């Protein structure tokens, strides 16, 4: 089983979805892919289709309109999948928590593995979140 676990921890492919946030966290997630931080060193690539991805990186409070799309994306991903909630909006809905069109954090909709606090979290914090996820995968 060591080989499978090695494979799974060494190449976590991510897919990014913004559920209504202010796209500050999104540009930080994309900045983590860029030459200065370059998370491809850990074997992470951003994939276009939910079918190819293992990790769903979600940013933003879940607005009412986006909720069932988020659940649909989560269902489309093949099984050993995990979710990273990036940004305090994704964790608790932050400033928009009591707006009428917002559900609050991601965990009210789909199970979340790693929370990355910050508004927006710096790319180093996002990489730290991914490393924690890899440790969690290693622990099995």
């Amino acid at each position, binding site marked *: 089983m060591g080989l499978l676990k090695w494979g799974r921890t060494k190449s976590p492919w991510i897919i990014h979805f913004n559920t209504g946030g202010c796209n500050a966290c999104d540009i930080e997630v994309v900045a983590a892919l860029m030459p200065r931080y370059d998370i491809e060193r850990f074997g992470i690539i951003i994939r276009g289709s939910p079918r190819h991805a293992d990790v769903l990186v979600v940013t933003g409070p879940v*607005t*009412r*309109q986006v909720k069932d799309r988020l659940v649909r994306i989560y269902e489309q991903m093949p099984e050993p999948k995990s979710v990273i909630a990036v940004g305090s909006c994704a964790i608790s809905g932050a400033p928009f928590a*009591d*707006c*009428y*069109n917002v*559900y*609050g954090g991601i965990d*009210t909709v789909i199970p979340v593995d790693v929370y990355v606090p910050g508004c927006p979290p710096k790319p180093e914090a996002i990489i730290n979140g991914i490393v924690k996820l890899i440790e969690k995968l290693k622990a099995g």
Partner: protein
Amino acid sequence: MTEETTEENEIVRKMKHLIGKNVLESEVTRPRRIFILVNKKVFGKAIRYLTKRMDFSHVSTITGVDVGEEIEVIYHLNRAGTTELSLKVRVAKDKLVLPTITDIIPGATLYEREVHDILGVIFEGHPDLSPVILPEGWPSDVYPLRKEWTIKKIQKKVTKGGKR
């Protein structure tokens, strides 16, 4: 006062000349800002006059404000990027109808859609007034920005008491 404000007063004078006492209120708060409240009856004429002859061709946006028993719709018109004229019209809540201006300025379709969505003002002649920013399955009688709808009441009504 600098030369600019006379230009604003010039516009206000022309409007008064056009529709006389129907200009209920007019105010020049600072250079390049004019607020004019017009009676609903002459609204169509005023808009046509401003956009066609006075060259206010750019609609920055349309704001809806719930002022108690009436809804105030404010058309922020702009001329050549400089002077911003806010034309205000008051519509009673029981008869929320206004003529659309999309035939004069096609760019205003989106703004009218939003005011209809969150305040319920119906714009006659608008090509397509279906719901806009509010999510699918939003109860059609809830207008979020009305004063009587507090956030708590909206939440309860929309989720029908379901979980947040």
